[in-house]
């Protein structure tokens, strides 16, 4: 199962001329797949082990920090990856496999047969993974909100914690934290208007106790940040020398 990402990439280098090679398109499509728990793309996390493109055939191998990462998240990422690749206009046959996981056989068979979540996990599945996704979309919004408000507190020491309930999107600086918050707000269905309040729950309700709501949001942000760090560290420990897949063409451009 193990293969060298560099070798695979080299074999397909001259495949498709054009503005973007098919390999790059595959990589870009995989960049839309997010680890819901860590709220980061699988490409940034190093979860893409290899990509092989032969004409209209694509084979992608994914890897995770441990054999015992939660199987529902593992399946979500692998099936999202397959969906993203099938959606590319030129792909005809897409194989996505998860390597080295305790549920690799089950998940890979389910993906190959397009069995869906319930078809893959049978008696262990009830309805869908929608609720799981929603739980983590809400957490991602909470964390993004806390980053913005804590950033504001640090930038403006005169600001009282109690007054944060009045802060609106328009009060936030035009930076990456604000951009991230706007994306998370859209994901949970909250408006992006400048006059909209920042400190709200996923349904737009302001809290009764502002400092306590901020503390709770902070614990969510700390938890997500900590997990992301731990997962990256474990992945690096587990796979050591073996780098994640990056398209050669991308590498070449970056080196120029």
């Amino acid at each position, binding site marked *: 199962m193990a293969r060298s990402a560099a070798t695979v990439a080299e074999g397909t280098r001259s495949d498709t001329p054009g503005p973007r090679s098919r390999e790059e398109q595959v990589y870009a499509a995989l960049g839309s797949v997010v680890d819901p728990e860590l709220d980061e793309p699988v490409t940034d996390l190093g979860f893409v082990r290899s990509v092989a493109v032969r004409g209209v055939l694509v084979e992608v191998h994914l890897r995770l920090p441990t054999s015992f990462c939660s199987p529902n998240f593992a399946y979500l990422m692998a099936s999202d990856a397959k969906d993203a690749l099938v959606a590319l206009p030129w792909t005809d046959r897409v194989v996505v496999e998860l390597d080295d996981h305790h549920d690799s056989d089950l998940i890979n068979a389910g993906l190959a047969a397009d069995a869906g979540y319930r078809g893959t996990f049978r008696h262990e*599945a009830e309805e869908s993974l929608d609720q799981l996704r929603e739980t*983590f979309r809400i957490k991602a919004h909470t964390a993004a909100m806390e980053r913005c408000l804590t950033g504001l507190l640090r930038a403006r020491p005169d600001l009282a914690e109690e007054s944060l309930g009045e802060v609106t999107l328009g009060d936030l600086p035009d930076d990456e934290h604000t951009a991230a918050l706007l994306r998370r707000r859209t994901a949970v269905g909250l408006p992006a208007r400048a006059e909209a309040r920042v400190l709200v729950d996923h349904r737009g309700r302001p809290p009764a*106790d502002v400092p306590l709501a901020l503390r709770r949001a902070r614990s969510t942000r*700390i*938890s997500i940040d900590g997990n992301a760090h731990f997962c990256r560290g474990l992945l690096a420990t587990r796979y050591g020398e073996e780098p994640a897949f990056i398209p050669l063409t991308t590498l070449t451009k970056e080196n120029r």
Partner: protein
Amino acid sequence: MYTKDGEKYFIVDAHVALWDARPENQRNIHGKQFIDCFYDYHRNLSPEEEVWPYEDYLYQGSERLMHDLFEIGYVDHAIFQPAHLGEFYNNGFGQTEEAFQLAKANPDRLTYNHHWDPRNGEAGLEQLRADAEAYGLKGVKLYTAEWHGESRGWKFDDPWAHRYLEVCQELGITNIHVHKGPTIRPLDRDAFDVADIDHIATDFPELNFVIEHVGLPRLEDFCWIATQEPNVHGGLAVAMPFIHTRPRYFAQILGELIYWIGEDRIQFSSDYAIWTPKWLIERFVDFQIPEDMTEYAPLTTDQKKKILGLNAARMYDIPVPAELDILPAPETLVGPRQPEAADLGATAGV
């Protein structure tokens, strides 16, 4: 006992194991995957000079455990928290007989906790009664992601779990250590969710629930549940070694815990043999919240003493020399404990 700068610390390592993951005990590929996962935890979070060779990691044996904990590790008392993993290992992962005999031979230094599984039904209840008598149980360690035939996990809202807890209460097995694992049925929801603890903590006010790994990877959910229940505690297994790899994150974990659950309900543990207690204790005593993290108060020496041993000693009635003991802090039973109490009722649903 650990002494530094004239201060003496009574040490209770509240989560240790005596495991056997050698190939001859591995039942299938998952036995290897499981110990490899532990070994990656160990390699990833340990200082370089503390990393063991893989072979040493597979099995330690009684002698090495006694050496690592008590001869060089400063530990006064340690508590076995075994994981059974019967589907992965022929003779189980935690070595029941060896650990129990060791505890029997060293009652002033070791406490043996056992485990149960609600999916064993009536027969398991009988077994629990027999085990309680044979081992003189004060506590149990429950791993919710234990595989069991077709099932790969259970939750505390299972009516059978309720019955097992009733028997624990009846038999005086008061300390329920919970490790939330990743595989559970149905897979529709977050397996690490600790919400089911909320209900049993309310239903069994006489039992202590120690959530291992302080709920990681769901620290926030743990803090929120624990702050509302007077009998929910946090075990620092797995959180401790971040003190080395990521001290600022460790500071945040501790800061959050002290805010939400207070200084009397946090228990130190090395999670031996994933890590060894010596370096963790030395670093913890030297540790301080970074000055720029103004959202958290600095850690006091008394808080460190409580976390390193006095809290677990109180829960397990482990005798502490009078000159080393400290009274619990005058904290509220529920709601954020520090720096000041807050009325949670007013913010329900936030």
